[in-house]
């Protein structure tokens, strides 16, 4: 990916998707919550590496994992790897109706997904990558505060909103 900002923008888009659509539907879609959480963490890491790593990028999972297992980033690996492992499980664990085997939802129960992976590992990856990024961008944050609309703002007429 071409730039630091491109990774940051994807973090923000994925976070918006998680908060707005997926987390409220975690009971129905725990696999998608974990998968998007992992890719959010991946772009946090890639944004950090763009600022902090000589090669700027890692091009595939194994290269990224090698870098994260090194001494400088291993504290991030502790929270990144569980997200990677769970998203891989969510994508590849087969579910066969009528068989006495686990499904992803029975393994990672939906009511544990948010505390374990969103408020837990993903939040820590965010915190740890932001700490590294702030060495060169002191005020940086991945997540912008939600835009607030003053109560006195006039409503936009439908015709104006449509651009006519």
């Amino acid at each position, binding site marked *: 990916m071409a730039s630091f900002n491109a990774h940051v923008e994807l973090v923000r888009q994925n976070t918006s998707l998680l908060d707005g659509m997926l987390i409220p539907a975690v009971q129905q879609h725990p696999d998608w919550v974990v998968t998007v959480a992992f890719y959010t963490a991946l772009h946090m890491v890639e944004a950090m590496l763009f600022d902090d790593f000589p090669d700027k990028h890692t091009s595939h999972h194994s290269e990224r994992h*090698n870098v994260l297992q090194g001494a400088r980033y291993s504290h991030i690996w502790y929270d990144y790897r569980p997200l990677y492992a769970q998203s891989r499980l969510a994508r590849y664990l087969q579910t066969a109706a009528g068989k006495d*085997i686990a499904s992803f939802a029975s393994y990672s129960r939906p009511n544990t997904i948010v505390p374990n992976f969103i408020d837990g590992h993903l939040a820590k990856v965010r915190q740890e990558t932001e700490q590294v990024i702030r060495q060169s961008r002191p005020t940086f944050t991945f997540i912008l505060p939600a835009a607030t609309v003053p109560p006195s703002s006039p409503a936009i007429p439908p015709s104006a909103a449509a651009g006519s």
Partner: protein
Amino acid sequence: MAKMPLKTNVIRLGHLDPKAQLLVERDGDRVVMTPDEAIDACLSRDQSKDLIARRDLFERQMRMLTAKLGQWIDERRAKVFEGYLQTRLDCQMFLIVLKGDEYDPAIEKSLTELTIDVASDPAFSMLRLDVQALPKCDTDDVKSFIDLDD
């Protein structure tokens, strides 16, 4: 290739006519080759020695890794049903199947520590460990993660 001081009675192949034919005999076998082919054969022999040394080192490290992972499983027999180790192009994949069917944070943390241990230990310099825990599942599920035919 190791550099040695040349003696005057040494034949310097690189100085021969490239079209010259060399006849090499050993144990009744006769091989005819050009000087360039002879030089290539010498270099190849050196590279083969290096490859053999690297293969031996890899095998030694794999034996150590297998022992380490076996011990890891033994220490968690109450939770781990079975384990697989598969060599891939870019890593060694350690896959475990749990006895239970629920996510186990302690096992996940321990697996992460295993990857750090291997990555930071010079004794495993040729290896990179990837790890994955699966809940209690059948062979078809395991096959989604590793190729059991290998």
